[in-house]
Structures are given as structure tokens and as C-alpha cells.
């Protein structure tokens, strides 16, 4: 059968193998903390994360739990709750390969993968130390105007796009509303692996109103139900971020020991599903 497999959250993350390039969304989009827990529980190592284009608690937990070998991001922060402590410790301790970038470069490189082109040009960047340190980027002369240097970025093609969404239908179509970085992630990635709040009856594509906010099943490999699966991060207008829980994490994770204790509790928590 074509179409995504509806499965458990444990099986969902079993599709993510060590060394894979995994795209994750920003905190204002659809972050699957439920899958983050399952990844940490399973002890998947050597992941290469691409934040689209930033991350927060999700990247920080995965870095702290030792799952991440490399991270490409325009920023990692807990927002109002302050710096991302495990990420910062890993950078200073040099236990994480960091690929610093800028938000539109991530978006553009994913669009290159989406379009099957080897690279995408991007304005800006020239004179920045981001560019100076990205030996995988190239500056070329604009072929349409002599003496106009422009940066070109190689396509980023993730093995997996991992995100959380409000709902899926039984065909495996995912409703993401206007959070279209998830669409680009899904198009760019070889396969999408998605947790959802619920499975709904009927096709989300049957009606123009819901179809407008859908990532079609065509791009989706596995789906698991995880109510409040973004918690403590918020989800669209469905639930807000749990600021107290994020602040508690920020405080605990300031030290390695504090993080370990927090992680034990997090891993022991019954999965939402």
C-alpha cells in the first residue's frame, strides 16, 4: 500500500537511524517533543540536525542527551527563558560540530532540494564570518551582471523531516495550517515523520478550505498520535507554550548534573499517547 504508516511513537522514531540528517522546525511552528523523548529513549546517536531555521528546547535536549554529532542552525535559544544551556556547553566544550548559518540560507538551501537544483543563490552574507567559515558555500559572479558577486548555497536534502502537527486524516495527509516551513521541509526531505494531536475522519484534501493547509501524504512516511506532543512548546492556536516548564528546564539544564536529573524525569514520563 502507498501512503504513510500509522504507528506508535516508538516505531515512528525507529525510522531515524544514526548519522541521518534530520530537519526540525522552529518553536513557532510544530515541534515534536514527543518524538524527541522517543529518540532520546532509544538512544539514537550521531544525528545531524538541521534547524529550520532555528531551534530551542528540542535541539538542546537532543544535544544534552548525546544524540547529536552536528547541528546546522541560524540560532539555538530558549527564547524568553534564556540561552540553550546544553547547546552552549557543547559548543564551548567542542563536543558538537556546529554549522553556523543565517535563517534565509536554511530556507533557500531546502528550497534548492525541493526544486532538485544543486544550489540556490542568496543575497547578503558577503563580508560575514558565517560565509568565511562555510567552506561548503561558493561565491560566484552573477551570470547576468558582471562584477556582482553572489553567494550560492548547496541544496540541503534531509533524510527525515520530523515535526508535530494538529491533525492527520486516514490517508496520511497532515494539516499544518500556515506553517509552511513544514511544507518546504517535507518537500526537501526524503521522508517526513510526523506526530499529530489526532487523526480525523474524512479527507483533509476533499475541501478547499482545509486542503490549503495540508502536507500531502505523498511526502509522509510514518505518523504517530501524540496528544500535546509539542509540550512544553506551544502549537498554533491550539495550546500555548508552557513558559513555566520551559523556565524549569532552562534552570535545571544549566549544569550537566541538573540536565541529567531533568532528562531522567523526561524519559520516565509516560508518552502522551
Amino acid at each position, binding site marked *: 500500500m502507498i501512503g504513510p504508516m500509522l504507528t506508535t511513537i516508538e516505531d515512528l522514531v525507529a525510522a531515524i537511524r544514526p548519522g541521518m540528517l534530520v530537519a526540525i522546525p522552529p518553536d513557532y*511552528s510544530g515541534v515534536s517533543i514527543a518524538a524527541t523523548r522517543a529518540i532520546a529513549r532509544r538512544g539514537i546517536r550521531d544525528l545531524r540536525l538541521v534547524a529550520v531555521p532555528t531551534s530551542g528546547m528540542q535541539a538542546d535536549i537532543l544535544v544534552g542527551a548525546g544524540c547529536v554529532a552536528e547541528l546546522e542552525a541560524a540560532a539555538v535559544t530558549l527564547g524568553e527563558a534564556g540561552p540553550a544551556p546544553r547547546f552552549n556547553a557543547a559548543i564551548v566544550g567542542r563536543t558538537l560540530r556546529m554549522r553556523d548559518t543565517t535563517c*534565509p540560507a536554511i*530556507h533557500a538551501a531546502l528550497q534548492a532540494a525541493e526544486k532538485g537544483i544543486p544550489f540556490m543563490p542568496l543575497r*547578503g552574507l558577503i563580508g560575514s*564570518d558565517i560565509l568565511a567559515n562555510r567552506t561548503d558555500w561558493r561565491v560566484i559572479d552573477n551570470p547576468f551582471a558582471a562584477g556582482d558577486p553572489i553567494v550560492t548555497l548547496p541544496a540541503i536534502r534531509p533524510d527525515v523531516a520530523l515535526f508535530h502537527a494538529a491533525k492527520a486524516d486516514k490517508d496520511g495527509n497532515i494539516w499544518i495550517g500556515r506553517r509552511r516551513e513544514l511544507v518546504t521541509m517535507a518537500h526537501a526531505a526524503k521522508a517526513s515523520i510526523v506526530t499529530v494531536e489526532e487523526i480525523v475522519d474524512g479527507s483533509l484534501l476533499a475541501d478547499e478550505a482545509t486542503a490549503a493547509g495540508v502536507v500531502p501524504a505523498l511526502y509522509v512516511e510514518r505518523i504517530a498520535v501524540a496528544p500535546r506532543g509539542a509540550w512544553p512548546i506551544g502549537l498554533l492556536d491550539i495550546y500555548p507554550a508552557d513558559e513555566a516548564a520551559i523556565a524549569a528546564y532552562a534552570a535545571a539544564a544549566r549544569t550537566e548534573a541538573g540536565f541529567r536529573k531533568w532528562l531522567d524525569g523526561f524519559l520516565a514520563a509516560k508518552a502522551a499517547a
Partner: protein
Amino acid sequence: MDRARTELLVVTLSRLLDGARTIAVGASSPIPGAAALLTRARSGGATRVLMLGSIKHNSFTDGGRELFDCAAQGRIDAFFLGGGQIDGAANINLVGLGDYPSLTHRFPGSFGSAYLYFLIPRVILFREEHSPRVLVPKVDFISAPGTSAPRIYRRGGPVALVTGRCVFEFSAGRFRLASTHPGEDAASVRAQTGFDYDVAGDVPQTPGPDEAERALLAGRVRDEIAETYPRFAAAWAAAA
């Protein structure tokens, strides 16, 4: 939170936004966000605010890239950037301290600065901490350069730097002290600034909010910013 200082900063930033048709505000920016909302409230409908992280003050429907695409299309007039370090050439560092990649301290990261600094005509630098460790002779890492050679495609850049002590204006590659906040003067600012800058004549004091602004700050603006920055809005209300 020091209410008077917060409101001075909001009003000062807001004045620098005057006349902007479309103002975008990035992540983790409660004071710039409030300033943009104040400009909008005073504009009689002439100003649009696009605030990352907001659901209400968000016209975007094309995902995270739309802000950047929109800037490239020339539709955004003003934006804010900050920096863990800022130098006298308006280079900003949002990445960390030390000899990259061997950092001794990490900041969150460059966000969209390396792009938006080139494309938005009116970029206002904002950093509340004004000290020699922030305002440095030369940043350790250039997230985004303050100026570019003529042959580099660049349609925007810094127009001012607002700190907790003063307002600097930026032109021709140099900062100039434009006003000092209450409790500061040209000498106290000089003592806390690690980079070189110009001072022309007497430096006025940064004016605080007038009555109408005060009413908007305590009402509409604080209510509106709460949607995106609830903790900031709560602390502001508590300090009032």
C-alpha cells in the same frame, strides 16, 4: 524591570520608526516589538507591523521564509538587530566570544542578520547593555557587517544604535552620539563605550514619553505585546 527605562527605550525606538510603512520585528525582541506597536498605534493606520512569534500581528502565510523574501522584495522598511558585541563599524556579533569556532562563550546565533542587514533600508541596532564588553573596538565574529564595499549588493543597513545609555546615529561608516538618556552624559557614555565614535557639539537628552505615548504604553501597546511576550508584559505591568 525599571518601568521608566523600559518605556524610554520603547519610545526612543518608536521615534526612529516614524514614517515606516512596514516594520518587521524578529524573535526574542519584546522592547522593539513594543516600539513597533507604539509606532503603529500612533500612525493612524499608516504602519503595518509584522512580528515573528505573534499570531495576531502576523500577515505571513508562506512559512518562515516569507519575512526574508518580503525584505528582498523591498516591502519592509524597518527592522531591529542586536548583538552580543557591536563595534564602531556597526559590525554585529551574535555568535560568540573567542576565536571561532573555539568559543569561550556562545550566543544564540546570527538569526537572519547576515541577510536582513543588507536588505532592509532602516535597521535599528538595539542592545540594552551598554558596556565596554558589548560595545567593542572589533567584534570577535562578524555575523553581519555594518557596511560593504560599493560593488557588493546592499540596499540597507544600520541607521542608529540605541542602548540603555544613549542613542548613536550611524552614517558614512561611523557612529555619532545623538542623545544621552536621563542620568547619562557624553562623558559617562564615553567611559562605557569600547569603540570610537563622533560627538558634535552639545549632546541633548533623550526625550521620554509624552502624555499620549504614556497612555498608549500603559494600555494598547502593553496589551498587544502580551500576546507574543507574556512574561515581558507581565513584568512591565507589575513595575507600573
